[in-house]
């Protein structure tokens, strides 16, 4: 368990806790040298191919692939929470349009948190009752926040649709074609868990104080909103949207490489090799772009990726997941400023799993600080 070793042991780490091993986890195995990402032992490529977001979220939280009966219960539970309190939607009318979309969404969540059932019950049982509500409420609120960017009102959920399809329906107002739903669902699956990244760690610190799971998710979301974490997908998409075709992409990339340009959506703190999430999404992105007559953007992406990876690959810099999600989301009709939101909806599954893994006997996380100032005057 994270932070759980009972006998203190020495470790070496740098600023920002770099290289500190905070503890053990059973949830995901990330190998940044070989490009392997396993949820509870299952490779993400297999899950993308053969599973749904509902089944994968169950797997991440509970540790095993659900049986048919377990899956049905979980799906029903998720459907049951698709209607968040009215007040959380109304909060959008109380904040300026020009505020950051994630800040507006954050405000909806903080208002919804004033209307949660048994809010002050932080027993382990009560915490386990929360993930379904959090996943479904946040999806409905996120959909409304995205529509609000275009001045549109919320759409009622459709109980016939699965999690991914219903989110797209509530966001776009129409049900997209089946292959686009699958593509979007694939993006949720590959982004549903990624170890103890900074946002997951923020959530863990909050849960360690005895707070409720919703509070932990809010902290994770705050971390995700930051430019170092969740902002790269927009920048990556805008970079590609500014390039006309593969030739121009190659020419521009070569010149930019010569200048030592840092390419948004390339390079990752963990992966020193091709990002397995990119590999799992590329086929979907190509198909969606082609359906929308946007082959040129796919060619821009592959040209850019090849140019950058040829030069920077030997240094461990490859396209990361932020380079590809925009290529799926934009043709479906999501505005660029909303790109971090699906990531947020997916990855909170992992945060909650880490929190629930920590909870049974996790101590409060409270590291030290070292004083370097003047000695006191007395």
């Amino acid at each position, binding site marked *: 368990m994270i932070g759980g070793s009972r006998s203190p042991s*020495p470790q070496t780490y740098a*600023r920002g806790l770099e290289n500190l091993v905070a503890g053990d986890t*059973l949830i*995901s195995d990330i190998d940044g040298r070989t490009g*392997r990402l396993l949820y509870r032992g299952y490779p993400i490529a297999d899950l993308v191919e053969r599973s749904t977001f509902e089944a994968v979220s169950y797997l991440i939280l509970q540790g095993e692939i659900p049986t048919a009966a377990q899956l049905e219960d979980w799906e029903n539970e998720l459907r049951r929470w698709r209607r968040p309190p009215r007040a959380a939607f109304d909060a959008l009318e109380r*904040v300026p349009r020009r505020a950051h979309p994630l800040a507006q969404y954050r405000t909806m969540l903080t208002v919804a948190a004033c209307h949660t059932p048994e809010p002050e019950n932080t027993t382990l049982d009560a915490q386990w009752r929360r993930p379904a509500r959090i996943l479904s409420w946040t999806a409905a609120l996120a959909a409304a926040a995205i529509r609000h960017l275009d001045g549109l009102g919320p759409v009622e959920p459709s109980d016939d649709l699965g999690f991914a399809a219903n989110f797209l329906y509530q966001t776009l107002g129409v049900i997209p074609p089946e292959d686009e739903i699958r593509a979007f669902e694939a993006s949720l699956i590959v982004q549903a868990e990624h170890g103890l990244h*900074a946002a997951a760690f*923020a959530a863990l610190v909050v849960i360690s104080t005895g707070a409720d799971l919703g509070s932990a998710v809010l902290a994770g979301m705050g971390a995700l909103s930051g430019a170092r974490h969740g902002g790269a997908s927009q920048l990556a998409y805008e970079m590609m949207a500014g390039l006309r075709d593969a030739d121009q992409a190659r020419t521009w990339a070569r010149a930019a490489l010569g200048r030592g340009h840092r390419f948004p959506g390339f390079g990752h703190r963990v992966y020193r090799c091709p990002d397995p999430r990119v590999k799992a999404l590329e086929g979907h992105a190509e198909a969606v772009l082609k359906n929308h007559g946007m082959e040129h953007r796919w060619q821009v992406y592959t040209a850019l990726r090849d140019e950058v990876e040829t030069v920077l690959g030997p240094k461990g810099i490859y396209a990361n997941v932020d380079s590809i999600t925009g290529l799926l989301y934009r043709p479906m009709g999501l505005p660029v400023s909303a790109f971090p939101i699906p990531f947020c909806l997916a990855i909170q599954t992992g945060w909650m799993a880490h929190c629930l893994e920590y909870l049974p006997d996790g101590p409060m996380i*409270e590291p030290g600080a070292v004083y370097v*100032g003047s000695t006191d005057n007395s």
Partner: protein
Amino acid sequence: MRYKYRVNILPTLSASFDWKAEKIDWPVTTEVGRGLSGVIATTTDVMWLDPASGRLTYRGEPVETLAASNSFEEVACLLITGSAPETDPAAYRVVRDQLRSGRMLPADVVGLIRDLEPATHPTRLLRAGISALGCHELSVDDDLSGEQHWRELRIVGQIAALAAEIAAHRAGRGSPPIDVDASLPESVLAGLNGCRPDPEDVRVLDLLWVLYAAHGLDAPTFTSMVVASCLADPYFNIVAGLSALRGPRQGGAGEAVLDQLAALSEPRAAGTLVRRILDEGRPIAGFGHRSYRMPDPRVVVLRRELAALANRRGRPEIFEAARAIETAATAVLAPRGVHVNINFYAAPIFHLLGADAAFGPCLFAVGRTAGLVALVREAMDTIRLVRPLSRYVGPSERSLPDPGST
């Protein structure tokens, strides 16, 4: 591991370890215990809590000295800007104006709070309020890179303004009137009690906030630091920090202290009450602190203040009850190294100032924000991203079950 293992392990978990004397030379090797105790997350010259003596200093000044002679606004100035208010009175006036600049809440933020049930836990109202306020303060195009102390100072004042508004909402009163000359404690007490505060009450709240302003990398501060390290806007940091503020192990501890006081019928019964709580395997509220193996020096100041305040209110029995529980619990727990902590006396003081148990954490939040924003700002100058690693101990790679089998 990228770093060579160094022979020099800093025994930071030991009480004899002298943090100040050690030169911190990154990367560093320390003993790491439960909850990351012993880990050096950052270096700071904002505040220092000496684990050996329990002494707390802000920018080198002992906190007891500051509490006796400085207002909370002056201490916020010291913590956030690093300059003592006395050194440049003109500069301090500017700082004080920035602290108070957040007193006018936008009508939409007031409306958002007023639409919520007054019975909602006030820390949730505070979090919703600061989140909405953040939307009014910053637009999607704002470049935050050049922001300096004024933003942090303003946020402290905004938390105070929201606390006053929420207190009035909970009491069923309209928004407190804006008094341009009111200090932060004056405006919060006015919101809390619906009248001009007694100067002696203002002094007590000032003092409480000074004592609470900074206390190392507590969970709210550390959470906020992790979020800030991802370059989130400052209101995300505060929302995250407030999320960590009132778990039962944090700012919520005060609620348990008041329940415990209420459970005592008369001072003579304190021994029985303490034994019963311990026999039931529950902790004594207001006792024990990770950082202290000795009595918390701030308690000495607050014990005196509670005695005086309770007398002034004609409620001496509150102090007598607290003193009786403290004595009875200390007799049992002190030999185990568990001592009374600041919440034990702060909670009844908050109560006598007009805050009910649930509102205590909101009052705590105002004081703590001053140290939080100062520590976070300082850490951002040196830290890139706060992110530890985890070790995977789960199942090895496996194949999905046959579709037919599920």
